[in-house]
């Protein structure tokens, strides 16, 4: 009689390497399917229905094909939200890269005690987005905010930051850049530290000044890290929600795509249309991710 344990061992041993790999990957695939594929599939499915919890379609959805998407393309509010989201990407991604690079260079200086600089780098990154939004909401308060206080002390007029659209946009961008540049700095700092010191030394021997060695050595060698940071930042910038939401008391004078999706689904209970908007948002993130994957594959080659 064969002992059960040895039978298992034998059957595992019988597996080809390929089959073994398959069985070892099954749990991960199942998990991924459960937390990623199922919800996205479900979202796609819901986006094809008229489903509002405020009428009878809440319990018996009606199939409408691509109607929700057609509606989105003629929905002025969707285009405004998309445009606002693009503006956020265009301003805050380069903004965070520049500030993040500065911070990374600063943190890479040979300080004797390194931890205060590193801690300063990590703190904004560790802070929840909503908190950052609320803190900046107070900074920009027209009556009690520190920003207006400084402006008034310098002899200026109080500005209505939160309720004037143009000012609000820049206040939001500034908050996002503050919040996200530390993430960029962390990636760039890692990139900086793998640049061999000898390169700078030989450049110095060749008579290059600091500026030249920054342009000729640091920047080109840091480019892969900058690209990674830029792509990650772009993906999260497309999903911008927390900071503009918290800064406007939940109002929607400046609305990003993610904010519109939330209002449509969670507040207006229009889940069919809300899902269609979310699918469109998903497609955008998907395209950006494809670009990223292409880049990673390119780097492997």
């Amino acid at each position, binding site marked *: 009689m064969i002992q059960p344990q040895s039978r298992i061992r034998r059957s595992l041993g019988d597996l080809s390497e390929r089959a073994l790999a398959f069985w070892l990957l099954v749990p991960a695939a199942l998990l991924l399917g459960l937390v990623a594929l199922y919800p996205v599939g479900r979202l796609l499915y819901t986006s094809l229905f008229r489903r*509002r*919890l*405020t*009428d009878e379609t*809440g*319990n018996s959805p009606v199939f409408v094909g691509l109607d929700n998407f057609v509606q989105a393309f003629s929905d002025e509010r969707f285009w405004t939200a998309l445009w606002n989201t693009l503006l956020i990407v265009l301003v805050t991604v380069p903004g965070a890269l520049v500030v993040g690079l500065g911070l990374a260079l600063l943190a890479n200086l040979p300080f004797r005690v390194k931890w205060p600089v590193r801690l300063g780098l990590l703190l904004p990154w560790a802070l929840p987005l909503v908190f950052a939004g609320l803190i900046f909401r107070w900074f920009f*308060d*027209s*009556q009690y905010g520190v920003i207006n206080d400084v402006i008034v002390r310098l002899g200026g007029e109080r500005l*209505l930051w*939160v*309720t*004037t*659209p143009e000012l609000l946009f820049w206040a939001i961008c500034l908050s996002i850049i503050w919040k996200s540049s530390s993430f960029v700095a962390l990636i760039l700092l890692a990139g900086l530290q793998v640049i061999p010191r000898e390169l700078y030394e030989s450049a110095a021997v060749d008579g290059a000044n600091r500026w030249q060695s920054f342009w000729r050595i640091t920047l080109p060698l840091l480019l892969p890290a900058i690209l990674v940071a830029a792509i990650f930042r772009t993906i999260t910038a497309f999903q911008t929600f927390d900071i503009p939401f918290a800064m*406007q*008391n*939940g*109002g*929607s*004078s400046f609305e990003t795509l993610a904010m519109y999706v939330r*209002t449509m689904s*969670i*507040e*207006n*209970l229009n*889940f069919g249309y809300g899902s269609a908007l979310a699918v469109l948002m998903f497609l955008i993130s998907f395209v950006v991710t494809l670009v990223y994957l292409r880049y990673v594959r390119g780097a492997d080659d």
Partner: protein
Amino acid sequence: MRKLFWLLVAVLVMSAALAQQTRLRVFVGGQQRPDVMRKIFDLYQSKNPGVRVDLEVGGATSDQQQQYLTTVLASRDPSIDIILIDVIRPAQYLASRWADTLDKYLPAASRQNLLRQYLPAYSQANVINGQLVALPGFADAMFLYYRADLLEKYGFRPPTTWDEAIQQAQTILQRENNPNLNGIGFIGAPAEGTVCTFLLPVWAAGGDVTNAQGQFSLTVEQAQRALQFWVGLMDQRVSPPNMAEKPQDTIRSEMQAGRWVFGTMFAYAWNRFQNDADSQVKGRIGVVPLPAFAGGRQASCLGGWQWTVSDFSRNKAQAHKLVRFLSSPEVSKILAIDASNLPVFPALYRDPDILRVNPWFGQALPVVQAARARPQHPRYAEISEVIRVTTNQVLARQKTPEQGAREIVTRLQAIYGGR
């Protein structure tokens, strides 16, 4: 494997033992005085030993609470049995089939008897399409709070018209010459209270969002005049230029710090002015019905909170019993004394115990009786968003009152037209 089996058996036995006692979970908002609610639940538990009532406390505003509840209810989560909902929500709860309507526990005759005891506005607000969706917990309406000491100093009586209020505010601001003092505070942030701000002048002018048949009837002219009135307060400098930033509770805390002469707010503010440790205005605040607009009409905005049973509850009968207790005169009195919540029973406005704590309740009854309700509609959330966001943008001077009025009317027409 065997260990796991016994563990499972143990869990089952334990849960069966716990099931002997009914556990009800009640959801209330953070601003609904959870401490007072707990006291009321303890009272119920001592009378009903077989029932344990758990309290779940939600966000601090009506919108925040509903966002959370939407997630819970849309996923048919049975964990919450009873919910305290805003007076604007019964229609949506019925349409979404989130509420277990109370009719099956009440024969028609006793339902009528029960509803007759409440203030008529609340029996109306809770019956949608003939179905009883919820029972009233406490009443609310908007009032004018004023600095009694300042008005007395300049020999003014509490204003009965807005023109009077504006004049008084102008005089007081000029003579006091205090840069930290503001005139008339009203709700202007894009939150739910701003819907009331918009509707007050509309109602006073004899208009409303719908007519008696429930058809959309708001005109651009009515909407424009309403928006113009509030913008006018800022133009006349009795309200500061940043009103678009102010939610209700900011006005309340500023008035508590002595920064406003007048403030339009719901009833909860009184208790905070009188009892909060940091209140600078203890004993110096008076409260009267909102002033009348030109033409002599007065209007207030009906608030108030209702108890409803979740349709996903597993203890509906027990939950219904608790809701009946929570909407009883006994509880209404506790809420009036401990939380200055306005009673839903007219007789309690003359109750000596209540008047000792809230002397102004004597004048409050006619205000609550005359207060107007915001539109009842399953898609109220969208109606509210259109009104509060647009009103906020007009107050922030991003749009003129005329542009705002056109936008409000066009977008509301679309919602009422089923689009």
